[in-house]
């Protein structure tokens, strides 16, 4: 979509920050104009509806996340390191997110939300699968399970993390659930050697722990 490509990345980033802080419903186009230092007229030149803006921001976020996760995959020293870095990144990005944002998207922008979840899940599923294969090749993960089964199970949880009925925001914070899940996943698949590396990574760097 040429229009999106022409739109200033920093503009989309500012919008994303705004939505992550305040949600979507309560933010008007006026608010967006003020926060990004654009005039309402030029805003409506680029986006005829708020829906279009929301979609553009979602696409921007998706691009940003995928580029970073690809980078992490390339730069990590092993499969476990990759997953831990990935988790830190995701926690940092979504941990600051106002729960209203997800609630608003699901309720008022259901099609955008659907699209977002599908993109994300397809991407994550692929990443988890390649991570499993990498870890098995590095002898850091066991080989007594099928990678496709485990990666499907992993990615099916993703929606649950955002499902208020499974993990109500009043009781479970996204960050806490995500941290717990990554450890559960890594311990669930690690070989003896993998467990040793995990013990070191978690305690030395005092990472997710």
């Amino acid at each position, binding site marked *: 979509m040429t229009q999106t490509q022409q739109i200033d990345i920093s503009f989309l980033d500012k919008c994303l920050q705004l939505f992550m802080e305040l949600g979507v419903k309560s933010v008007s186009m006026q608010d967006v104009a003020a926060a990004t230092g654009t005039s309402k007229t030029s805003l409506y030149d680029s986006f005829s509806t708020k829906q279009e803006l929301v979609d553009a921001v979602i696409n921007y976020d998706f691009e940003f996340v995928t580029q970073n996760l690809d980078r992490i995959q390339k730069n990590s020293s092993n499969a476990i390191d990759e997953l831990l870095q990935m988790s830190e990144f995701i926690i940092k990005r979504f941990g600051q997110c106002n729960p209203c944002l997800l609630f608003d998207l699901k309720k008022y922008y259901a099609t955008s939300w659907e699209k977002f979840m599908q993109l994300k899940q397809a991407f994550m599923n692929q990443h988890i699968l390649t991570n499993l294969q990498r870890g098995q090749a590095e002898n850091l993960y066991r080989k007594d*399970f099928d990678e496709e089964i*485990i990666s499907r199970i992993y990615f099916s949880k993703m929606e649950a993390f955002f499902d208020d009925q499974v993990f109500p925001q009043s009781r479970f914070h996204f960050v806490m659930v995500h941290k*717990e899940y990554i450890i559960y996943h890594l311990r669930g698949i690690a070989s003896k050697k993998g467990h040793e590396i995990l013990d070191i990574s978690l305690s030395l760097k005092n990472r997710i722990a």
Partner: protein
Amino acid sequence: MKKTIERDERGYLIMPDELLEKCAEHFMKIGVRSVSMDDISRHLGISKKTLYQYVSNKGELLAKIIRLKVVHVERDLSAIFSGSSTALTAFMDYSTYPLDSYGWINPKAVYDLKKYYPTAWKIYQDHLEVFTYTIIEANLSRGIKEGLFRKSLCTPVITSIYLRTIVGLFNSNEYPLEKFTPAQVMKDYLCYHLHGICTEKGVKIITAACKEKA
């Protein structure tokens, strides 16, 4: 001497378990929505008039069936979890419990119950969210005390993850894994789960079982 027939507080006859079991079979075979009260009375070999002496409508009948199943399953599971020597053996015994003893866990029936028969559905939901949740969480705590499960586990999170996964495994939409058998999927998940929660001591116990083929 004729047996005294018991009635409930509204004057309805108390339906014997054997009749409820027969109904359950029929519903699960044909489907919750498509079975009529006519079908049921024919299947039971009683008149429709008699059937309506037991229940006022189909929803009520389904609720009685679900309640009966829940009582049986809860009795069985309580025995399994309290009767085992360790939390790990309790969990491993539980994982071999035939979940089709529920008799209603086929996804279409669950979907229909949820949508059209909320009273019956609520009984099943409570069973899952209250009874099963409590017993699984208690098992985790026990295992932690026994040094078999990791001390740092956040039991509410792990319990919710576990339940959500198990329920999801019966919903074939979530796992369109045609190339794998349900037994294989379940086994891989259970081993993954156990490795995920066990201490070194616990892992030693499960390693052999997990290396076996499903």
